[in-house]
């Protein structure tokens, strides 16, 4: 035990004796780990956010479309609402147009459903199906200099001369899902009756949202719809989540490839540092062996050096990385694109521990080879080495 402590002390003094090299090596590891940890945090936020927005939009609802992406006759809405277990079938019309000459995405739903699509933060919802009223995201309204009570001109392919709508409410900038749907365009919500006119979709819907009586019935309802209407495509929250998941997994793969490269670079740095340190100490290793230090103990000394470097770099890197992740989520992402991305910053021990473990593992592995070589140095040769 004392012997081990002595060997660890030896390793620590050795590192302390060349502070600049130790510092730079640890910094190299720290940079790799920081990138890994910050990306990990962003990815955690992304996952949480996507899950959350799919959940608020869908909950235990079901989305129905035509398999060939054609509009669905409004008649189907009535048929679907008669299926046992279905509480309500909500038609949804979507399309694109211009609002005050800016690209916009038009979302039309029955006015009693509008609030489950858009969260209103200022003003009120649309008062009646016939009213020429709309909701706009607060951020794009501010950008266009529009406030509650202003009138905006909405132009579409079918209403080329435009229709004037009064802005009655400002909605929260849609979650990630909405950003993915609408891109940088803003989302203007109107009643389905107005949407039919604007987009020339009288008597049809682009998709139907089905609410069920009992969340545990979802799969039964899905099966019933599939059986009765084989040309309808049915997706549940789970399907959408899975789809989103596979996109997220791809993003993660890219993120972790980038991180892996930086970890490899850091590992090569550690390997270089430990190799140098052994080179300089060949003679001393010979002396250590001549006074009875075993190969395993020599191995232990230099592995300890590597692991200490990893520990230092990993700790620094994890702390930096968490800070960096915070800055990216709170400062960079919301400003980087024309639409706002607001991800939650989730502070959990997981990224920190991951960063530390990866740093230690990487430095252990990269110092293994040089340390093994050091342990195999023959004392006679080492003693003759100048």
């Amino acid at each position, binding site marked *: 035990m*004392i012997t081990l402590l*002595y060997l660890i002390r*030896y390793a620590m003094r050795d590192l302390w*004796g060349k502070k600049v090299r130790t510092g730079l090596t640890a910094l190299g590891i720290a940079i790799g780990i920081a990138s890994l940890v910050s990306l990990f945090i962003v990815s955690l936020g992304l996952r949480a956010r996507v899950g959350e927005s799919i959940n608020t939009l869908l909950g235990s609802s079901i989305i129905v479309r035509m398999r060939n992406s054609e509009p669905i006759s409004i008649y189907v809405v009535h048929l679907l609402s008669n299926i046992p277990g279905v509480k309500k079938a909500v038609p949804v019309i979507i399309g694109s147009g211009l609002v005050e000459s800016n690209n916009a995405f038009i979302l039309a739903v029955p006015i009693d459903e509008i609030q489950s699509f858009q969260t209103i933060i200022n003003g009120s919802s649309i008062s009646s199906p016939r009213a020429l009223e709309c909701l706009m995201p607060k951020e794009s309204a501010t950008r266009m200099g529009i406030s509650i009570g202003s009138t905006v001109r909405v132009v579409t392919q079918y209403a080329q001369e435009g229709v004037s709508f009064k802005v009655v409410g400002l909605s929260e900038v849609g979650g990630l899902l909405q950003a993915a749907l609408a891109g940088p365009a803003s989302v203007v919500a109107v009643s389905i009756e107005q949407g039919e006119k604007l987009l020339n979709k009288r008597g049809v819907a682009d998709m139907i949202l089905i609410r069920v009586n009992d969340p545990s019935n979802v799969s039964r309802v899905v099966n019933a719809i599939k059986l009765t209407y084989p040309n309808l495509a049915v997706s549940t929250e789970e399907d959408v989540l899975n789809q989103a998941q596979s996109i997220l997994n791809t993003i993660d793969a890219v993120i972790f490839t980038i991180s892996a490269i930086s970890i490899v670079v850091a590992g090569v740095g550690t390997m270089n540092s430990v190799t140098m340190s052994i080179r300089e100490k060949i*003679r001393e290793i010979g*002396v250590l062996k001549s*006074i*009875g230090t075993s190969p395993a103990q020599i191995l232990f000394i230099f592995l300890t050096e590597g692991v200490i470097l990893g520990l230092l770099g990993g700790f620094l890197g994890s702390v930096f990385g968490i800070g960096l992740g915070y800055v990216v989520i709170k400062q960079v992402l919301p400003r980087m694109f024309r639409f706002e991305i607001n991800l939650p910053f989730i502070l959990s021990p997981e990224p920190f521990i991951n960063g530390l473990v990866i740093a230690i593992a990487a430095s252990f592995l990269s110092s293994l080879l040089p340390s093994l070589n050091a342990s195999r140095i023959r004392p006679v040769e080492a003693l003759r080495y100048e």
Partner: protein
Amino acid sequence: MSSPALECVNVSKTYILGRDIEVKALRNVSLRVDKGDFVSIIGPSGSGKSTLLHIAGTLDRPTSGRVLIDGVDVTELSESKLTAFRKNKIGFVFQFFNLITNLSAIENVMLPMLLSRRYTLREARLKALYLLRLVGFPEDRLRNTPNRLSGGQQQKVAIARALANNPTYILADEPTGNLDVSSSAEIIATLKLLNSFGNTIIIVTHNIELARVTNKILFMRDGCIYEEAPRSFLEHMPMDESTLDAKRKIQLEMLKLERENIERLFKNRLISSEAYEKALKSIEEKELKVKQ
């Protein structure tokens, strides 16, 4: 009373440098060192002294022959057994001190004791202190690392370290080779004292003063060991007529080159005529010497 500490029986060491090129560093060396002996080995550079010491210290293996330490045949022991053996039975002192650079003086002495696991930290520290006192190491330098110690002080630490685990014998390779006269004298006196306390010491040295204080001097030449000094070391290296002739020719040719050089310099007015005369005269004198 006089049981053998070290016995080498017909030990040879041949280094193979390449196809057909081999160096016979040791040829059939037989040697016996008894407990309590103080033996010195002297001999010209390259005669195989260090090689013999490394083999006696189990750092190297002989090509043939056997080595017995304290009655144990170590010739075929495994590397890990040898490590343990070295740790407990052999102390090394080197020409370049070879202290562990990031350990203090006292820690250097403690290290072998801690590696042996026979001492507690407290015992090791106390024993290190005694050993350092014994070799005359100044007590106010105990915490200094080697780079803040003089050569003589470092060598004292090295001797104390060699004694740490009560070795069967101490091997010292030119322990005064890197020291000034007065430090050498101190080290010699210290080794003599330690031997009078019963420590077995084997040293390799060029230092005649040091060899003189030992009980037994062995001579090495060309990988062979002699109990008596070979009649004359020089006698064995005459230069025969043919090599001498060849060397004379080289000298004359070199002087010719010198002369041409001087003449060119003078012709190009790069040196004064006095300098030219002087250089020429010295060259002529040298040429005369060769021709005599």
